[in-house]
């Protein structure tokens, strides 16, 4: 490296700080916020939700996906150690449910910009992040305004989150809008894997999470969690389900035995 270039780099570092210049290959690993569910942390490359990035909880299809319950459980967890903001654009917030999930309501700030006011909600989230709110969840509703109305606010939110190193999780219904998919560094697709019933009632929802996009690691990892609803004498919680790979049993065809016999042998 020429001396003049080294001197220029040293000048820039001394003037704008050592973080101003970095070599291309030395990208720093962002900090991670642990979800306290080892199964989820295990599929996330930083070991949790990335700080300073947008995380998207996207529904895999129409109908219930568990993304809002998962988001609220994450908010509840975060509120035990941080001030937390919940931007309710879906109009579905129930502080009682947050309390059932173990949230510290004193640390929860609920922002209700109004139905389908995505731009306003994202602007408010950006303001709070800029002010120092370390954890923000945004629940988007089914009614999607035109992206041109809110993508600028989303870009500003992304910038503020990156600048303050905050955790920002956005739950979006199916299909996820293109600006959201572009802005997110981590997209977890939530697909329902079946209801869990107890005594003739729905007690929980099994959800399969897939990292469909990750700028921080290889996508494609999956995990299954159980979103347990509050019931009498049972708390609401998120449980990781063991990912046991059960090999599919291939029927073995033995010459001389008919198909019924093969089926009987299992």
């Amino acid at each position, binding site marked *: 490296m020429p001396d003049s270039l080294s001197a220029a780099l040293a000048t820039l570092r001394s003037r704008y700080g050592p973080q101003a210049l970095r070599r291309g290959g030395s990208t720093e690993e962002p900090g991670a916020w642990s979800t306290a569910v080892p199964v989820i942390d295990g599929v996330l490359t930083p070991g949790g939700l990335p700080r300073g990035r947008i995380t998207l909880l996207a529904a895999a299809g129409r109908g219930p996906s568990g993304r809002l319950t998962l988001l609220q459980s994450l908010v509840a967890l975060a509120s035990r150690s941080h*001030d937390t903001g919940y931007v309710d654009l879906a109009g579905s917030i129930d502080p009682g449910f947050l309390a059932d999930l173990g949230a510290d*309501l004193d640390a929860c*700030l609920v922002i209700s*910009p109004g139905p389908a006011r995505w731009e306003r909600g994202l602007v408010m989230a950006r303001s709070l992040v800029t*002010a120092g709110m*370390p954890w923000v969840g945004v629940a988007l509703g089914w009614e999607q305004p035109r992206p041109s109305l809110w993508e600028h606010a989303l870009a500003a939110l992304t910038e503020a989150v990156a600048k303050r190193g905050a955790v920002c999780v956005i739950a979006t219904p199916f299909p996820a809008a293109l600006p959201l998919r572009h802005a997110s560094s981590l997209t977890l697709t939530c697909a329902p894997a079946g209801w869990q019933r107890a005594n003739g009632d729905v007690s929980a929802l099994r959800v399969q999470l897939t990292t469909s996009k990750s700028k921080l690691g290889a996508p494609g990892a999956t995990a299954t969690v159980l979103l347990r609803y509050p019931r009498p004498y049972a708390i609401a919680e998120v449980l990781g389900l063991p990912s046991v790979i059960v090999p599919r049993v291939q029927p073995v065809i033995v010459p001389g035995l008919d198909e019924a016999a093969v089926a009987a042998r299992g």
Partner: protein
Amino acid sequence: MRVLCARHPHLGLIAALRRYPELREEPVILGGAPELRLPVVAASAAALAAGVRVGQPLRQAQQSCPAAVFVPLDPAGVGTLRAAVCAELHRLSPTVEGGDEESFGDLSGRHAEFPDEASWASALARGLRGVLDTEIAVGVAGSRFVARLAARASRPGRIRRVRSGEEAAFLAPLPLEVLPIDPAVTARLAAFGLDCLGAVAGLGPADLQRQFGPDGIRLHRLARGEDSAGILPAPAQRTWSERLVLDGATGDLEILLRGARECAMTLGGRLTAEALAAGEVSVAFELEEMELISTSGVPPAPAGNAGALWTAALGLLGLLQPPAPVAAVRVSVTRLAPAAGRQADLLRPGDGAREAVVATAERLRSRFGAATVRRPRLALDPGDLPERRFTWEVPVVAGFR
């Protein structure tokens, strides 16, 4: 500690003479009409020379000085004058106290602009003389009591300084009547043959306590000039404002925002430099050919820097809708108080930003509506209805409001 005491005519009398300047040379008695059964609050020099005494009934004062003019006390005028006195003292002293006839300022330490205490006290006296338009008698001493007596011993336009260690010698020849204690105690001291403060100071504290109980200790300290009473700070007397005249009246919101921001930044810098925080912020638009419009509000936490002040001012700007082009923007701060530090919760990351978050929430509420940013709280008695399980509250920093 060094305390400055400035003795001046009663502020009510000064206000009355400003209102009726033609009475300056006349005997004036402050307190109301003579037929009212009220005491004399203050009297001009001519009235005092005629035998009028403060505290005597107005009817009696009329008999002493039949030519006197009786004026009522104007509380608003007194308040304005007191605020002006405190503001002038605050200009050079960090802690001040304003009274009707005496004002106090803290002269502890050193002031960068003045080489010694005497020049500092002179500057304060000159400032007060400019505000009240009358000569001030000033006393400087190591305690409030001694400074007050030094001011009484001084003359208008003069400063009487009692150096540290000389308090007892200064007090020794003074009569017992100057002690701010129960007259019955003074009478008992006189019965013992003690006729001056020096005689009382010569007694031991144990002897005085045996005779007078807990008051004996205080009596001993007062007589030796060792009282610990300091200055009772005057709350919220200062108002700082920053005004920006625009290049031509305009209704452009961007220009108004920039103007208000510039004012807020300048004021915030002053607050930071003086280590003060504003308890109330107001924003005003001076309109072209119309009366100015203004609004004020109390920030969630006292604003002590440019960022906090701008956040508070921005929240107020949404309330102002100028009906005509704006010629000038003004941002003011009042209820100034020393910017106290706050102990952050050690185990809650991001707690230091809580004030900023709450201030932002307050601004968002004022901009988008009161129901947009709220904090949930579980209801104590939820009853049977699910919607009664929780209530909504306004986010406020604990310890403020």
